[in-house]
């Protein structure tokens, strides 16, 4: 059975390279059973007005895989983290999915490998 991989993005794109590096790793593990889960300040990396210069190409790759038969990799945003920061789903870019906190915890809990950034 393939391992379930979660790339967990926790940090803001301002002041660190962690979201960009996490998405770079997500590309590397995208052929596995992988989900990108975004919690805490990581949500700022997916705002419409965020400067995505460093990770736009990674997002493009994840949302449009090179192989036609491959499904786009899911980027899951923690709703509670959004609400805590006064943000709404409409503030986010396309190709991300907002999930309730309980679902986010379940996905993290079921992962065989969690790669934290």
């Amino acid at each position: 059975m393939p391992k379930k991989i979660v790339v967990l993005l926790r940090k803001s794109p301002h002041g660190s390279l962690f979201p960009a590096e996490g998405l770079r790793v997500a590309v590397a593990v995208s052929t596995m059973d992988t989900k990108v889960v975004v919690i805490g300040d990581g949500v700022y990396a997916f705002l419409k007005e965020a400067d995505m210069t460093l990770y736009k190409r990674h997002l493009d790759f994840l949302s449009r895989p090179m192989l036609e038969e491959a499904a786009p990799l899911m980027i899951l945003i923690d709703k509670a983290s959004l609400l805590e920061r006064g943000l709404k789903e409409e503030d986010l870019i396309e190709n991300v999915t907002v999930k309730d906190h309980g679902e986010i915890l379940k996905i993290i809990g079921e992962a065989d490998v969690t790669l934290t950034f």
Partner: protein
Amino acid sequence: MATISFLFFSGPYQSESPETVVELAKAALAKGIKVKIFCYMDAVNSVMTVQKEVPGVTNIEKQFRDLIAKGVDVRLCTLCMLVRGTKDVIEGAQKAGTPDIAEMAEESDRFLVIF
């Protein structure tokens, strides 16, 4: 043989993270567990050569040399080395890339992230 892998982020001499990775690796080796370490971002500087010996401070270069001598698979993010100008690294540490993280995740029984 069981395998444990570490995704390791920290440079030397700022926090205890390098010592933590080293001690966990030693403990795993003592139990007969195969160990792999992927040095990502600033962690590539933890395996630079010519680190100065300072009394009372754990020499990270020496610790990693010992781990490699004991068979630990140490891999370095090549892009991270390039952007930091990291050139001289200890013998046995292999240049690698993010696909190696995928391989390690697939092959390891446990995968830990150490900041």
